[in-house]
């Protein structure tokens, strides 16, 4: 069929484009704030730390922004399926008029998607600069949260297949348990003694690679006492899947007594520990003989 012939066909009775657009805009205006308000608080990783809370805020924004495009796809599909369904009339299996491009729609499409992507890039960068967003920042953390000079240093040591922890301000005591005081800015120093691990404290919104010979710094500001899951998030060998643990945020009084208890329990081995260091290159690296 030629274009001239197509243009002579009578105009459709209903303007599907306009009808769909109105329905979509109405649905978006209603659904977007509902999603942000009611779903936002239930998004991962929860409210366990300032960083986790920031991530929930970010996730709420992302979900809200993707609500209109998501609705567009689902509604378009639904509208097309319903409106243009085969009603069983003779000759219904006929091709529609060909589409020869639409400069307005194409321009709009590019402008809108570019705007969304650029906004998200700016938004994400801004959020990252605030405090590092709970991610590992390497040995020289570029994004230091306010009051970082007074942060409590805690070292996370990955090894096949367990995390252990050192507290340099408490005599460099090492323990297999991660306990943090509530309402405290903590500077985690994540490192490894062997393979590459990844320290993932889900409830705290913290995830940082544990590389041998690297001091990977993460800031996390704890809130109320809680339990959180710890997992290794980097395939690291046979027991990678068993490299999990439960960490605790406790009231500061309990933290002090816990540290004392650990110091006395692990006193026998403390004389054999190397001096606290941001990284370790341990011997033996290979079995002799």
């Amino acid at each position: 069929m030629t274009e001239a012939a197509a243009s002579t066909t009578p105009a459709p009775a209903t303007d599907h484009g306009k009808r769909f657009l109105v329905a979509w805009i109405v649905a978006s205006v209603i659904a977007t704030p509902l999603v942000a308000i009611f779903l936002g608080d239930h998004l991962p990783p929860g409210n366990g730390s300032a960083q986790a809370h920031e991530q929930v805020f970010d996730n709420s924004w992302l979900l809200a922004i993707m609500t209109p495009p998501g609705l567009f796809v689902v509604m378009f599909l639904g509208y097309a399926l319903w409106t243009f369904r085969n009603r069983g009339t003779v000759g219904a299996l006929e091709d529609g008029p060909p589409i020869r491009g639409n400069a307005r729609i194409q321009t709009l499409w590019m402008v809108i998607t570019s705007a969304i992507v650029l906004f998200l890039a700016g938004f994400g960068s801004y959020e990252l600069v605030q405090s590092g967003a709970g991610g590992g920042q390497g040995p020289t953390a570029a994004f230091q949260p306010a009051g970082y000079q007074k942060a409590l240093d805690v070292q996370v040591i990955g090894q096949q297949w367990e995390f252990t922890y050192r507290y340099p301000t408490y005599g460099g005591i090492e323990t297999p348990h991660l306990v943090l005081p509530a309402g405290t800015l903590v500077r985690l120093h994540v490192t490894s003694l062997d393979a590459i691990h990844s320290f993932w404290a889900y409830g705290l919104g913290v995830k940082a690679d544990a590389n041998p010979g690297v001091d990977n710094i993460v800031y996390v500001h704890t809130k109320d006492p809680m339990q959180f899951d710890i997992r290794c998030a980097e395939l690291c060998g046979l027991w990678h899947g068993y490299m999990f643990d439960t960490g605790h945020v406790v009231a500061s009084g309990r933290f002090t007594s816990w540290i004392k208890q650990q110091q006395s329990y692990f006193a026998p081995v403390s004389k054999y520990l190397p001096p606290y260091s941001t990284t370790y290159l341990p011997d033996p690296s290979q079995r002799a003989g």
Partner: protein
Amino acid sequence: MRGGLAAKVAGVAAVVAVAGILIGFYISGYLVGNTTPFRPAAQTTSGKTSVNLVLQTVAAVGPTKAPHPDWVSYLVRRPNGQWERSTIYTLPAHALVHVTIYNFDGASGLRNPFLGQPQGLVGKEVVDGKPIDAFPPDQPSHTFAVPEMGILVPVAPVSEAGEDSPKACGYAPCALSMAHRTITFTFRTGKPGRYRWQCFVPCAAGFEYGFGGPMQSVGYMDGFLNVV
């Protein structure tokens, strides 16, 4: 034509499925090291359940305990006195487990000195009759560690003199007349579950960082405690 294509697709699918199953068997067989679970007999006296578990650690598992004769390994003693290469132990829940490890292997040392202190035991770790609080990091041959239960037991090494003497045991099974150390300890099992245990000492000779091969294989330096 149509039927030919369908047959071709079915043929390819069948080959892929069979290959996948074989690869799966190979990997799982490698990981579990063709080891069979061992269930020590439980004794109950005045309502308290306990079991004895007798293990030996050897520098090489030997040709009779194939498929990796030169791999370092744990072995378990069966009731008939035979040493079997098994690292999967079925244990009763909420029971005391009295473990004896005869170690015929020399020192390798720990990458993390922190793991030189026995943890999570009922009473102390005893080596040749002497209680031990912590080992220097260059000492342990192996560890018996169950991280989820908070249990860690470093295994004391045979001395250098013992390793060089004619009584040194090269490969399993090693008789108690050969040079060895005797490590005993007791731990309590908790609720039922499947707990992995492992060695933390990079004891795998000939592997990078001493942590390949037997250190990555159930049936050698890794295993499970099936608490039932």
